[in-house]
Structure formats: structure tokens, C-alpha cells
């Protein structure tokens, strides 16, 4: 094993060591914890750069489990997909680590926060470099755990604790499907590797659709697609850097990344791809519609994240994995940026999250204003910003495959522009609408720096000079220039219409102009679940309680005890305590057995 492959393992070991060190030794020293955690992330980032430049190679794989036909390896795959993803995860992660040093301020649990952040970095990087299903699943669950820990970081707040549980449970459902899919894959191929050549094992098999959909379940949970999306808005209870890192830039995108990794499975089934594309499209639309009526700045961003993830999933469903990954990268930049901006606002407004109580912040917080502006433009798809390019790529690819989804996506793009303008106008423009907003001031430098860096990438991330798209591979060679231009013009028009309507409708408004209860109440998903799932659960619980009480409790437990005690009372008669009668019975029994065997032989 040479040095460069050892270095590759450091990529994972650095955050692991950091998490362990902080948890074990550095709990009482928050400042040191910060330094260690940020340092570990920086090391990972440097190694990621080394990987991207090709100077660090894939390490020798380690056989982790080798039982019979099951071989699970711990290894790393450095292909174009993971190289880009590594850079995004570690880069954005580093920025957010630095930002957290400012944001977490004097929180008493800072050490714990940074330990959990490091744990998250470990698990996320593990997913990215995973060479096989089991390794990915392992880190997949670790991501879930660290997400759970971080959402519930302020666990003394009941809402945060509940949100953490909700996120965990929703992910559990998805992960269960994912696990079933993995088992199915193993049954088909006898291997767990991400190896496209394995697809010959199940090519054309009728069950391949089911397998693809089961694997997709993991993505539905992790990437908050309908119907398991309900946890993501609630996850905003966590600290804002967490929302930025986990619930916007990286973890939720892991679902999409996973879909791209296993695309060789998905592409075997047209129906599965269809389902995936429609799930993504509908999620994008529903989330965008919901976002137009929310008041909480972080929730708007959360729904926007969902919507953009829907976009990516839709792209994967349309066989445009590279477009999906491209959008994933740009989205990671600008959505992290937006969240950091929101965090910056919350930081100075003493955690006032209602956008109707903000306003006029552009004068008070010029840096936040500027970076947030760039983020909004990128998300809204204003030409010249990164989001524009990646979104257009997706729309082009989808348009080629499914016209209906194309219009749906286009409409969603318009909605995105609309609600982002609404958010922006209400937050930064007009007059301050509350006491705290009037006394706002700029955030500290440690928070400003990451925002500036991220806004730079949000601005230029889409340019071909930066080469994210090129690094992933070419996307749409076949597409004619005219069709490309058509899509571009359409999306610009729609985007500008959205921006225009949003700006016009909400400029200097004090309260909501028109209320759509359906959107306001998030399409009643929570209520629907409460009605159906909870009722069902209550019913099931009742049935099981009855079973437990009468069949198990009364029948099996007490019944068997009763039988045993009756039997004991009966057998007690024979237990005279007289050695000689025991000897008699013993001798007679032995003799009887002897006779029996001799006669029968």
C-alpha cells in the first residue's frame, strides 16, 4: 500500500477521528472542538482536491465481510461522479463549518454540534466513495443518524425532538425499501458492487422494475420526495448551518447521487424510470406551490429544496443523470448560500423566522443582502447565474423525453422565480416591519466569508469555464442548437414573468395578498397522514394490544404457566423424597429400556 492510497483513507479518517476526539476528550473545550472539526473538514477538502486532480488514487480495497457467497468490501471509487461530488461535499462542508463557528456563537452545546457535524462529514463522504451497496447503506444509515442528532440538536425544544423523530421515521420507511432492493439485487447478481456489467444478470427480467423502485425508495426517503417528504420542512428545527449542509446541499442530494450511481439498474426498466420522473416532477410542482404561501423563511427554503430535488429526480427519471448531477452541484452552492444568508438574518434578528416581520434589511446587512441576491438569482434561474444553466440542461433533457413533464418543469421554474422574489422582496425590501428588523446589523466576518465564497460559486458554477459539467461528461450532444435556444428563451421568459409577478405583487405589502388554503397548509399532507396513517396505526395498535393482552398475556404466558403449575402439582405426587423408591423406578426404567432394545434388535 503506497502513500497516496493511505491518503485516500484519510479522507474518511479525518472526520471520524475528529468526531471521536471531540466526543471523547474535547467536550469541555468548545473552541478546541471547533478548530479540530474545521481542521478535519479542511483536510478532507484538500484530499478531495488531490483526488480531483488525479494525484490521489483509489486505495486498495479491504475485504470487510467474506461469508460464503457474500463478499462486502470497503473500498473507494474515484470516478467523475464521485470526484465532483467529493469536491462539492467537502467544499460546501468546509464553508459551512467555518460559518458555524460564528453562527453557533456561545451555544453551550457547541462541542457536541461540531462532533456531530464531523460524524456527518464522515458518513456523507462514505456514501460518495462507496463501491458497493452495503458500504453505501452503512454510511446511508450513518447519515440518517447524524441528521437525526443534528435536527434534534436543541432537544430540549419538544418541536425539535419531534422533528428529529419524524425525520428518522420517514427515512426509515424509505431505507427499508432500499434494503429490500439491495437484497433483491444481491439475489439477482450474487454481488453487491456498483458494476454496470452486472446488469446482464437481470436484463429483461420482469422483477427488475420492482427492484428499481425499491432502490428508489431509499431516494424517496432521503431526498424528501412525495410521499415521504413531510420530514424535510420540519427538519428546519435544527440549527441553520445544519439545514444548509444536510437538508439542502449534501444529504438530501445523496438520494439523487445514489440514483446516478445505480443508474445501470434503473435504466433496465422503462416503467421504473417513468415512475421516478413523475415522482420528481410532482414533488417539484407540489413543493413549489407550497412554498408560495409559507411565512417561515427557512420553510420556504426547505420547500424550495424539495422542489429542486424533485427536479433532479425528474432528470434522473428522464435518463439525464449528468444533468441531474450538474444541477445537484450548482444547487448545493446556491442553496447552501441561501440558507447561510437566512441563518445570518436569523442570527441578528434573534431567531425571528417570519418573513412578514422582516423588511428593509438591505440597508442594515449589505453583505447578506448581496450574497442572498446572488443566491436568489441563481435559484430563480436568472441568465448568467449557475442555476440557469443547470436548470436549462434538465429542462432540455426532460423536454426530449416527455413533453408533459417539460411543461410541468417549466411551470415550476416560473413558480420558483415567483416565490423566491416574494421571499426576497419581503425580507430585504420595503420598510422594516418589526422592532427587531429595525435594529439589525451585519453578521460577523466568519459568517460573511463563507457566504462570499459560496456566492462566487453560485455565480460562476454554471459556466463551462468552471467545468463542472465537463467533469461529469457531456450531456446533450444530440440536441440541436435551435431546440436548445427555444428552451432557453422559454425558461427565461417564464422566469422573468415569475420574478415580475412576485416583485409587483409583494412590493411593500404588509400582509399576504391572497391565501390559498391548499398551498398554505402544505397540501394537507400532515393532516392526511394524521387521518389515515395515525388512525390506521391506532386501530392496529388496538388490535395488537388486544392480542397481547388476551392471546399472548392470558393465553400463552399465563396459560403455559397454569399448565406447568398443574403439571407440577400432578408430578409432585410422585416425588416422595424416598431414595429407595427412586432407585426402584430408576432400576426398573433402565431394565425396561434394556429389554426394549434387545427385543427390538
Amino acid at each position, binding site marked *: 500500500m503506497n502513500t497516496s492510497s493511505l491518503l485516500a483513507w484519510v479522507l474518511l479518517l479525518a472526520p471520524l477521528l475528529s468526531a471521536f476526539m471531540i466526543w471523547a476528550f474535547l467536550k469541555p473545550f468548545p473552541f478546541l472542538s471547533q478548530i479540530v472539526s474545521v481542521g478535519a473538514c479542511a483536510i478532507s477538502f484538500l484530499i478531495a482536491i488531490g483526488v480531483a486532480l488525479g494525484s490521489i488514487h483509489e486505495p486498495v480495497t479491504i475485504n470487510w465481510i467474506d461469508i460464503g457467497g457474500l463478499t462486502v468490501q470497503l473500498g473507494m471509487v474515484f470516478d467523475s461522479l464521485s470526484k465532483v461530488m467529493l469536491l462539492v461535499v467537502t467544499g460546501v462542508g468546509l464553508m459551512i463549518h467555518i460559518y458555524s463557528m460564528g453562527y453557533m456563537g456561545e451555544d453551550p452545546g457547541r462541542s457536541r454540534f461540531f462532533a456531530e457535524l464531523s460524524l456527518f462529514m464522515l458518513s456523507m463522504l462514505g456514501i460518495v466513495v462507496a463501491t458497493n451497496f452495503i458500504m453505501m447503506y452503512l454510511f446511508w444509515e450513518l447519515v440518517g443518524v447524524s441528521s437525526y442528532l443534528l435536527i434534534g440538536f436543541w432537544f430540549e425544544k419538544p418541536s425539535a425532538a419531534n422533528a428529529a423523530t419524524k425525520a428518522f421515521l420517514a427515512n426509515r420507511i424509505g431505507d427499508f425499501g432500499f434494503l429490500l432492493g439491495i437484497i433483491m439485487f444481491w439475489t439477482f447478481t450474487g454481488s453487491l458492487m456498483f458494476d454496470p456489467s452486472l446488469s446482464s444478470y437481470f436484463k429483461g427480467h420482469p422483477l427488475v422494475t420492482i427492484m428499481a423502485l425499491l432502490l428508489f425508495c431509499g431516494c424517496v426517503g432521503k431526498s424528501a420526495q412525495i410521499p415521504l417528504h413531510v420530514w424535510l420542512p420540519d427538519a428546519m428545527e435544527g440549527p441553520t448551518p445544519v439545514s444548509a449542509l444536510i437538508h439542502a446541499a449534501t444529504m438530501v442530494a445523496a438520494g439523487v447521487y445514489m440514483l446516478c450511481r445505480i443508474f445501470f439498474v434503473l435504466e433496465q426498466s422503462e416503467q421504473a424510470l417513468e415512475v421516478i420522473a413523475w415522482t420528481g416532477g410532482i414533488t417539484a410542482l407540489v413543493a413549489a406551490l407550497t412554498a408560495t404561501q409559507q411565512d417561515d423563511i427557512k420553510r420556504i427554503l426547505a420547500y424550495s429544496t424539495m422542489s429542486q430535488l424533485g427536479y433532479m429526480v425528474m432528470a434522473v427519471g428522464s435518463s439525464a443523470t449528468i444533468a441531474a448531477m450538474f444541477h445537484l452541484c450548482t444547487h448545493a452552492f446556491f442553496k447552501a448560500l441561501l440558507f447561510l444568508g437566512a441563518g445570518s438574518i436569523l442570527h441578528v434578528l434573534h431567531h425571528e423566522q417570519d418573513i412578514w416581520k422582516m423588511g428593509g434589511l438591505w440597508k442594515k446587512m449589505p453583505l447578506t443582502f448581496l450574497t442572498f441576491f446572488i443566491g436568489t438569482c441563481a435559484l430563480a434561474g436568472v441568465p448568467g447565474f449557475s442555476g440557469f444553466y443547470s436548470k436549462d440542461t434538465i429542462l432540455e433533457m426532460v423536454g426530449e423525453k416527455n413533453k408533459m413533464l417539460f411543461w410541468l418543469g417549466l411551470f415550476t421554474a416560473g413558480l420558483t422565480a415567483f416565490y423566491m422574489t416574494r421571499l426576497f422582496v419581503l425580507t430585504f425590501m420595503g420598510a422594516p416591519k418589526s422592532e427587531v428588523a429595525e435594529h439589525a446589523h451585519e453578521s460577523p466576518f466568519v459568517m460573511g466569508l463563507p457566504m462570499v465564497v459560496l456566492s462566487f460559486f453560485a455565480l460562476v458554477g454554471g459556466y463551462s469555464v468552471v467545468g463542472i459539467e465537463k467533469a461529469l461528461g457531456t450531456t446533450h450532444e444530440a440536441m440541436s442548437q435551435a431546440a436548445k435556444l427555444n428552451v432557453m428563451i422559454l425558461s427565461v421568459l417564464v422566469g422573468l414573468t415569475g420574478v415580475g409577478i412576485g416583485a409587483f405583487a409583494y412590493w411593500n405589502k404588509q400582509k399576504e395578498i391572497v391565501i390559498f388554503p391548499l398551498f398554505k397548509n402544505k397540501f394537507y399532507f400532515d393532516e392526511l397522514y394524521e387521518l389515515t396513517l395515525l388512525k390506521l396505526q391506532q386501530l392496529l395498535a388496538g388490535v395488537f394490544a388486544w392480542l397481547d393482552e388476551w392471546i399472548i398475556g392470558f393465553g400463552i404466558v399465563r396459560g403455559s404457566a397454569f399448565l406447568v403449575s398443574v403439571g407440577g402439582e400432578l408430578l409432585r405426587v410422585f416425588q416422595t423424597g424416598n431414595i429407595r423408591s427412586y432407585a*426402584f423406578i430408576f*432400576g*426398573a426404567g433402565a*431394565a425396561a429400556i*434394556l*429389554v426394549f432394545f*434387545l427385543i427390538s434388535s
Partner: protein
Amino acid sequence: MENFFFWTFVLTMIGSGIGVIANKNPVASAMNLVLMIISIAGLFVLLGAYFLAAVQVLVYAGAVMVLFLFIIMLLDLKAEQQANFRMLGIIGGLLTVLLLGIGFFLAGKNITSLVGKMGIVIQNNSIKALGELLFGNYALAFEAVGVLLLISMIGVIILSKKDLD
């Protein structure tokens, strides 16, 4: 000559065996047991197991029986007062013995048909061969038995202590 000794020893053995269980006085029972053990030692001699015959007399008739008598004296056991046998006991005992007899009879039929080399005389130097076997093949078992004796000795000492809780 051999036949004469065989029948003498066997009859003495059975007679004194019955004497052990029929005597009311424990000391008489013990004496009958000594007689039985000695006649078995005689049978061992007839079978060519000279070493075992010696061990039988030394260990059983010498050590074990002395221990029995010592305990009987120590506890000062009297002859049993009440009737020794109860009807149920006799029936049960006879039944068991009968069943066992049937078993042995059947087993004997099977075994004698298995052993074809009846009457082959064992090699003369059997004690030496036995010693080689004991300290060769069975050396480990021999040591284990030694340890067992040690442990039983310790156990007896502990059990015999006056303040046994």
C-alpha cells in the same frame, strides 16, 4: 479342579451377597460383603487377572471395608428394629430384578454369539502388560484418577469438619 474352584467361589459370592442384604445387623452385612469381595478376587484369579485380584483384596477388603466398619462403629448402629421388608418393596424389588434378569438373559444370548474366541488363554505376563497399558495408553486417565482421589480426600476432610454450615 478349575471347575471346582469356580463353583465354590460363585456360590460363596452369591450366598454372601444375599447375606449382605438379608442380615439385620450392619456388622454382619459388612462381614458378608468382605466374604463376597474375597470370592470375587478368587474369580479374578481364575480369570488370570492376578493384579486385579490383589487390588480387590487390598482396596476393597482392606481399605473400603475397614472404612465401612469404622463408620458403623462410629455411628453405633443397632440392628433394625421393625420388620425389614415391606410387601410393596418386595414386589417392586422382585419385579425389577426379574426385568433385569430378562434383560441380562437376552443380552447374554447376543453377547455370546458375538464372542467367538471363547477359551483363549490370556498371555502369561499379564501384569507387566497391564502396567504398560496403564502407564502408556491410559497415563492421562491414571493421572486424572489420582487427582480425583486427592479431591475426594479434600472433600471428605471438609465434610467431616465439626462446624459444617
